[in-house]
């Protein structure tokens, strides 16, 4: 993979529908940055389905050098039923030195959720990436994606993360890359990457069929639940 030119502070927020792959992208990005010896804080801002995201991975991520801001399930009574409680330090996560990666759950108010983070709206270096999987019915076509991203409001780029779980093949990823490219063009946004599970990423190469950078993902989240 080509070495990316990284700014002094990487500030990125990943947002998307349920099962779009936003958390997988955020986790991989955080681990990648930590692997470069950078200080990385990963923030759980998934207020929609919080118990299925970062909490159970906290320890494993910590061992990889990533600082995780998320509740421990054992800290809060009632979280078994999906508690939706903001951890106070999340509000000030952008004050952490170094890189900050945010995992944002999809909601009716889109990226307005960033209002909860002090300084997020004013922070010009914070990039919000919408993670798109065309296997999700609400982001399956170019017009669907355009509607979806408009609803999210402030978005700086799209990531094609089209997949069908274990049944993903190259043809499907290519279709996703094309659909996302078309939607991005209509929205006037860049396609930041095509993210793919590492086995398939090797088959595609450094860039995909349309010149988008390929990000190889390792799978972390399935371990979160089981």
């Amino acid at each position, binding site marked *: 993979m080509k070495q990316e030119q990284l700014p002094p502070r990487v500030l990125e927020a990943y947002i998307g529908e349920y099962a779009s792959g936003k958390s997988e992208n955020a986790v991989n990005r955080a681990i990648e940055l930590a692997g470069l010896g950078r200080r990385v804080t990963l923030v759980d801002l998934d207020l929609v389905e919080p118990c299925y995201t970062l909490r159970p991975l906290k320890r494993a991520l910590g061992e990889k050098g990533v600082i995780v801001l998320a509740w421990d399930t054992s800290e809060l009574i009632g979280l*078994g039923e999906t508690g939706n409680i903001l951890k106070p330090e999340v509000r000030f996560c952008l004050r952490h030195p170094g890189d900050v990666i945010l995992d944002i759950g999809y909601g009716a108010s889109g990226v307005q959720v960033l209002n909860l983070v002090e300084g997020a709206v004013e922070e010009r270096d914070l990039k919000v990436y919408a993670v798109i999987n065309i296997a999700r019915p609400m982001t399956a076509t170019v017009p669907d994606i355009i509607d979806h991203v408009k609803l999210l409001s402030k978005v700086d780029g799209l990531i094609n993360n089209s997949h069908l779980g274990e049944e993903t093949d190259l043809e499907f990823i290519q279709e996703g890359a094309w659909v996302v490219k078309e939607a991005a063009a209509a929205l006037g946004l860049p396609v930041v990457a095509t993210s793919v599970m590492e086995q398939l990423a090797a088959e595609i190469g450094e860039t995909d069929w349309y010149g988008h950078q390929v990000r190889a993902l390792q799978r972390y989240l399935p371990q979160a639940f089981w």
Partner: protein
Amino acid sequence: MGEKPIKGEQKAFMTGNEAVAWAALAAGADIMYGYPITPQNEIMQYWTRLAPKYEKKFLQTEDELSAGFTTVGGVLAGRRAFTATAGPGNVLMQEPMSMAEAMRIPTVVVVQQRGGPSTATVIYSQQEVTLTCFGGNGEGLRVVYSTSSHQELFDYTIKAFNTAWKYRFPTFVLADGYQAKMRESLVLYDPQEKGQKMVPTEAFVGKPGTPGEDRAPAHLRNTYNIEEELMDELAKDIKEYEEMTPEITEYEEFNTQDTDVLIVAHGIVFRSVAMAARELAEEGLKVGYFRPITLRPFPRQELQKAAAKAKQILVVESAYGQLLKMVKDNLYGLDVPIKGYLRPGVGITPEEVVADVRTILGEEE
């Protein structure tokens, strides 16, 4: 306190619902919460007539959810509190009783079964067995006594308070509309005079002293953070339930040594079955019965023992297989054949039982 409601032994002739109200008084119940539903209304009606004389309380609630949850509240305050319901009311009652089950709150509920599903009928039925034993989103950690006479309604209503407060599992007295409404004689008594000590109650909240200073505050909950925490809690409850089981299971049996037909029945239907079995036995036929009195916990070993000596088991019930399922579950592994005489929501006479047993015996000859 007011004067004692019952002195000495008193022969009385009354309905089953009245027997329950008198039993609750005799047991020293402090407060009843209830919502009208046939066929248990007269329990409330007699309780409200008797209660003021003995400084007892009553609250008519807005529905059975409230009746159940106010009963939970009454128990938390350390009072012998109870409620009564039936049919669709018993369906609503499951929500508060699942809280009682989770928090080991010793509630007492009298259920006068109706026909079901839905509104259905109000007189004769055994269709709330599964609901009462296993209702709610849990494992059925409750005690269910199935009565078959007014004397038993009186005896087991008193006993229910003691079982509940001793073991802290929600306890049910399961009868039906027929028992509720029919009249027969029974003996009323004060359990304490007969040497049957009432298990003392204890407040869960509002104990003496200032919490955090003189004592720890009661922080009671039914929500857990993590799966393992819940499983630990349940494992403890299940263990205590299983330890309690041999101490409280009750049953009755007749002629169970080497039977051609062993009839299994509970509650009101058991009365017909007992008459039928005795009649057939007098003719020299090898017919016996086994009657579980506690449906939860079920007298498993005792039934297995009786069933091992039987050629055929016949389950008779006014439901379509609710007791039958429990019997099969408890006899798993035995190769004795099991038949059902299943009449959901209708009465069963001794003659019908006799005829069915004769058919079985005829088939075998």
